[in-house]
Structure formats: structure tokens, C-alpha cells
């Protein structure tokens, strides 16, 4: 879902959307109408619609009209729509896309809103809030924040006689080797122990998670830190596991990984909460576990969705948008949203038993503290993520890791400046 390439029709859709347009409006003291773009299309969409309806029912002077698009088309159409003054008043988007819009002045600053005690923002998960911050100012509220986790096929685990889910990288690779099956001995396994994409990974977070596990990183304090001996070790470790031990097919991207897991051809995948529904749809018995610990740390890059309010909005519209944000983040709705969407609660003060009725949420909530925001505050995340993709793809294909890291370091530093 957070992948951007997938769904297209970009050009045509963009044009159509600009033509049909949509705008909020209303007089200063009359009723305020807001448009809200989001990309929640599954069960999560229904829950969000229900929350919006409740909001509309309880606020006589505000009406929010939602428009559902794919995440990719939100990204493709937002620029033209906003710059033509026809954009949404509230928009939800993949969190790593927010800084570029915010830094160009597309979104209203919410610093005052956060200071307001009634805004329900005091107990938000800190990592989620990091993702809406650009140059020290907050431009949005989180709508979702969940660490990547391993989704695994429990029947395949049983068949292979693995009883306990691996706790560290070595055990992880060992289990994956046991789960890799090449029945006809042609050198290409029919069943892979894991699927480790080497580019465009889920929410771009797989390799960052692995880098963190060995004490490495990508960007720290606005500086590129990718060229480190830790990252070189990480890349070599996983290249060897993927290529030499054949625990995963090569050249797969995040969508391909979802498909392989969904078709039962891979026993483990790293993904987001939607993997639960993919598994259920395909009749796969699954369980969720945290990404096993690396030599230095146990960590997982998080998938974030942020909501922001357009800077074009009038004061009344902005106030109404903030009213909605605090409504969305109140205790009752936080629980409802979490249970309905399958994402852990955004507030750290929601007791675990409140969300225990949804087993996916319960297990994801347990590992919430492993989640790290992806490239918080980095405006040019496009070039940084492209450089990481190029690095991992080439490294897995057998490129010279030191040279590749050096090159990636230069590109990422350029992108940050």
C-alpha cells in the first residue's frame, strides 16, 4: 500500500481529477465544508468513513467529505490540485512523503495545535510524531505507525519441524534454509524460506530495518551515515544468505514479496498489517513475529501514514481540520481505528487490553517499541531511497559492497544538502 509505483493511470487520472476538481469552501461564519483525501480502501476505509460520519453528526457546522484514492494517485495529483487551489483541505499520505510537501509550504503548521491540551496529541507515539516534523515544526498528525514485522506461514513451519520462531539473524537464516525446498533439484527452489526483496521493499523499510539491526543507519542528524563497516557487514551477510544459501528469490520487490507469500511460495515475509488479510484471503495460516534481532539491536523501520491540513485553507477551515484531528485522536476513536484498521494504537496511553480483541493489533502493539521512523524530516526522501535501492539491488547482485556504499554515501549526502 505504501508503494508508489503500483497503481497508475497517473497521467489520465491526474488530468481527470484536476478537471473535476474538488474544493472546500464556506463563509467565515457559515458551515464549513472540508474535503479529505485518503487511500484506505479496505476494511480500514470503512472504519475511517464511520469515524468521519460520527464527526459530521456531532459537528453541526462542519461537514467533511472524504475522497478515496490510491496512495499513489494521491501523490500524483496532490501537487497539481493544491497549486490550482482545488486540493483537499485534509490529506493522508505515506509519512515519508510529507516533508517534501511541508517544506514547499503546502501544509499548515500545527505547532499551536499540538500545544493545545484538548488536541489529544500529548500521548502520541513519539516516532510517529517525528515523521510529521520538518525543521522543528509539526505539519501533520499521524494516522498510522506500525513497525515492519515478519509474517510467517505456520503450516510450512510445522512441516519443516520448526517450533520456535527465530530470535536472531543466524537462527533466522537457519530456519529459512530449512524451509527452502528444491524438490526436483534443478537449482531453483520451489519453496523459499523467506522473501527478501532487494528494491522497493515494503514501505522502503526492509533494508533500513536490517541496517539498524547491526548498529548501522542511513541518515543521522541530517548527515548521510550509510557508508559504515556495520552496513557493509549487513549487506554481505544478507547477500550471502539470499544468493549463496538461496533462502530467497533475487530481484523481487515489495509487491512481489506480498504475492510470493500469498501464493504460499515463501514461508516468511516482512510486511505490514495488510499481510494478515492477504494471508486470510489465500487461506494461509499465519502468525506474526518481530523482525529477529541483529548482532547489535532489534529494530524495525516503521510504516507511517500522516495527515496534514492544506496551507490554502481559511482560518475557519483550518480550525475545523484541527477539530477533526483531535476527534480522530480521542480515546474512543483511537481504539476503534486501531481495531478496525489492524494498526496498533497511535496513543501510548491506550491500555493493551483495549485492543486485545484483534489478535493482529495485539501482537503488533507488543512490538511497537521496536518501530523507528523512516528518514524523519528528510525533504528529498526520493533521492535517498533511490540511492538505498540501488545500493541493495547491486550489492545482492554481487557488486563491490565497499564501492557501492561509498557511492551511496555521496548520493545521499547530495540529496540532503
Amino acid at each position, binding site marked *: 500500500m505504501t508503494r508508489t509505483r503500483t497503481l497508475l493511470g497517473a497521467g489520465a487520472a491526474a488530468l481527470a481529477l484536476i478537471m473535476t476538481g474538488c474544493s472546500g469552501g464556506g463563509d467565515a461564519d457559515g458551515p464549513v465544508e472540508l474535503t479529505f483525501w485518503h487511500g484506505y480502501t479496505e476494511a480500514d476505509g470503512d472504519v475511517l468513513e464511520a469515524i468521519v460520519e460520527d464527526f459530521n453528526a456531532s459537528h453541526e457546522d462542519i461537514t467533511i467529505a472524504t475522497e478515496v484514492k490510491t496512495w499513489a494517485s494521491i501523490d500524483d495529483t496532490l501537487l497539481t490540485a493544491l*497549486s490550482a487551489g482545488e486540493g483537499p483541505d485534509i490529506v493522508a499520505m505515506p509519512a515519508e512523503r510529507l516533508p517534501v510537501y511541508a517544506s*514547499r509550504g503546502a501544509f499548515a503548521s500545527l505547532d499551536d495545535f499540538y500545544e493545545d491540551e484538548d488536541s489529544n496529541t500529548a500521548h502520541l507515539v513519539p516516532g510517529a510524531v517525528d515523521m510529521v516534523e520538518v525543521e522543528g515544526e509539526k505539519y501533520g498528525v499521524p494516522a498510522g505507525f506500525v513497525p515492519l514485522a515478519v509474517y510467517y506461514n505456520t503450516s510450512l513451519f510445522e512441516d519443516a519441524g520448526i517450533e520456535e520462531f527465530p530470535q536472531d539473524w543466524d537462527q533466522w537464516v537457519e530456519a529459512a534454509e530449512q524451509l527452502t525446498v528444491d524438490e526436483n533439484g534443478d537449482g531453483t527452489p520451489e519453496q523459499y524460506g523467506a522473501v527478501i526483496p532487494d528494491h522497493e521493499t515494503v514501505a522502503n523499510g526492509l533494508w533500513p530495518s536490517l541496517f539498524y539491526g547491526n548498529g548501522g543507519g542511513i541518515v543521522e542528524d541530517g548527515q548521510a551515515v550509510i557508508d559504515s563497516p556495520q552496513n557493509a557487514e549487513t549487506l554481505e551477510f544478507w547477500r550471502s544468505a539470499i544468493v549463496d544459501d538461496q533462502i530467497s528469490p*533475487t*530481484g523481487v520487490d515489495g509487491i512481489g514479496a506480498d504475492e510470493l507469500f500469498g501464493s504460499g511460495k515463501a514461508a516468511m515475509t516482512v510486511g505490514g498489517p495488510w499481510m494478515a488479510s492477504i494471508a486470510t484471503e489465500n487461506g494461509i495460516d499465519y502468525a506474526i513475529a518481530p523482525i529477529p534481532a541483529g548482532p547489535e539491536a532489534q529494530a524495525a523501520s516503521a510504516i507511517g501514514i500522516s495527515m496534514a491540513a492544506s496551507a490554502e485553507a481559511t482560518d475557519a477551515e483550518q480550525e475545523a481540520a484541527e477539530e477533526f484531528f483531535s476527534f480522530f485522536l480521542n480515546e474512543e476513536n483511537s481504539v476503534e481505528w486501531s481495531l478496525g484498521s489492524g494498526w496498533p494504537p497511535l496513543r501510548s496511553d491506550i491500555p493493551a487490553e483495549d485492543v486485545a480483541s484483534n489478535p493482529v493489533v495485539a501482537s503488533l502493539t507488543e512490538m511497537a517499541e521496536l518501530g523507528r521512523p523512516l528518514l524523519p524530516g528528510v525533504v528529498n526522501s526520493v533521492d535517498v531511497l533511490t540511492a538505498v*535501492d540501488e545500493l541493495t539491488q547491486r550489492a545482492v547482485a554481487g557488486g563491490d559492497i565497499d564501492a557501492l556504499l561509498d557511492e551511496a554515501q555521496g548520493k545521499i549526502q547530495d540529496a540532503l544538502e
Partner: protein
Amino acid sequence: MTAQHPPARRYRPPAPLGGRRGSRRGLGRRNLRAFAFLAPALVVLGLFVVWPMISALRLSFTDASGFGREEWVGLENYVTVFTDPDILNAVLNTVQYTLLFTPTAVLAALGLALLLNNPHLPFRSFFRTALFVPFVISFAVAAFAWSYLIDPQVGLLNYWLGGLGIRMGNVLQDPTLAMPAVAFVAVWKLFGFYFVIFLAGLQDIPASLYEAARVDGAGPWSRLRHVTLPLLSNTMAFVLIFAMIAALQAFDQIYVMTGGGPYGNTQTMVMEIYESGFRKLEVGFASALSYVLLIATLLLSIVQFLFFGRKEKDLS
């Protein structure tokens, strides 16, 4: 005694692409009427083509992002276009794509047009229609269909070829095969259009010329070289220019199939424009890049016009 051949109708080649010069009389009134007829089209063109072009030209000298106030930055964007290694990579990829696509598409279209121009071929109209069908399909749909066909895990094509012992591997993730693959999809999708144009051009060539050539003892190869190809040069110019422009603007299937990857190997100029404008919100820079592409396309088209224009002159 010599048999008197009736004089062959003097062959007049079709008008060159620029048109023939007409009479100058009564031009004013006719122009006015012409403009009245053209007005609706001109208004649309002006609003949706000329105005955006002027506005993009202005933006290309600014640091516009689409929001807020833009600042004039002079030639900075253009300097970046010519110095950024990523752009150079995109230019080289576009050139490679053009070299793969244009000759393949044009030759395939020409070859099949020659074949299907033969009146004795069975199922001629079926083949003509069949070859045109891909052109009617949306590019995005074709691209999705092909990515599934050649998918290494679930692809039908891979499955069939696997049965024959041929392994294609993960074509779209292979740095050497990805570009030929996306170029192939464009050939498959577009050659039907060039094919129809060639077919029309072939049917414009009078049969008497072939008869004359045959009488002079020309074999099939000579007839192709000395009759068909020279008389097809206008059509050829049109098709080549269209194919080249299509190649320089490659985007749709690349966006769908590879997203510019693996590691930037299929990142073309238009992909770069899209990424700069819509992903990085560097609208000013994207405009400058568009203008560089526009001017390059224009120059290449002019070179081709001149080349074929001269051939035309040689012929008459």
C-alpha cells in the same frame, strides 16, 4: 514495326511534408474564412498547448515548487540539466531506448506492410486488423499484461519457455535486459500504427511503375530498392519522425513495468521529468528539463525533414 505503348501517366509524387506552394491570389479572404473554421481548434490549442508551454518556459527560470512564491533563478536549472550525472544517465538511456525502438518498430512495420500488400496473401484483412489491434490497447494495460506474461514466478511466457528448457529469468530486474524488454513492449504496441501508414503509402504507388520495372528486367529486390523505397520516402520520413518522437517520450510502460529500475537503467528523460516535478516537487527544474527535451526533439525532427526533403528533390 514497333508496338506503340500508351504513354504512362506521368507520376507525380505526393506533396512533400511541408506542402506545395499554392497560388497567391484571393489569399486574404480565404485566410479569414480558414481562420474562422480553425478558431475552435486554435482556441483549444492555445489554451492547452501554447499557454502551458509559455508558462513552463517561465517556470523553467524559477525555483517553482507548485506552492507559494517562486523566485527567479536565471539559468541555474539549465546548468543543472547539463551537469547532473543523473540527467546524463537519463539522456543516455533515452538514446539507447530510441536506438532500440525506432529501427525495430519501423522495420517490423515496413516488412509486414510489404508482406501484406501482396494481394494474393490469404486472410489478408484478418492479419491487417490483427496487427493493428495492439495500437488500440491502452499503453498501461499493455504494459501490465506484458509484465505478468514475463513475470519469473507466475508468467505464462516463462512457463512455456521453461517447458522448452529456456530460462528467461527475471527480465525486468536484469540490468541488461530491462531496457530491451520495455522497448519491445513499445514496439509491440506501436508498430501497428506505422504498419497502417506504410500500407497506405504502398498502395499509393502506381502499379504501372512496377510493370515498367518488370519490363526492364528488375527482380523483386531491385523493384523494392528502386521503385518501392524511393516512392515511400515521404511515408518513411513521417513514420521515422513519429517513431523517434514516441521513443524520446518513452514513459508509460517504463513507469508501469520497471519504474526506471533496475538501478536507474530504464530511467528515461520523461521519467526524470515526472520524478523531478511530481515526486520531488521541483517544478522549475522539471520545466527546464522538458524544454531541453523539446528542443532536442525539434532539432532531430528538423534534421530528418531536411534529409528526406533532399531525397525528395533528387527524385523529382
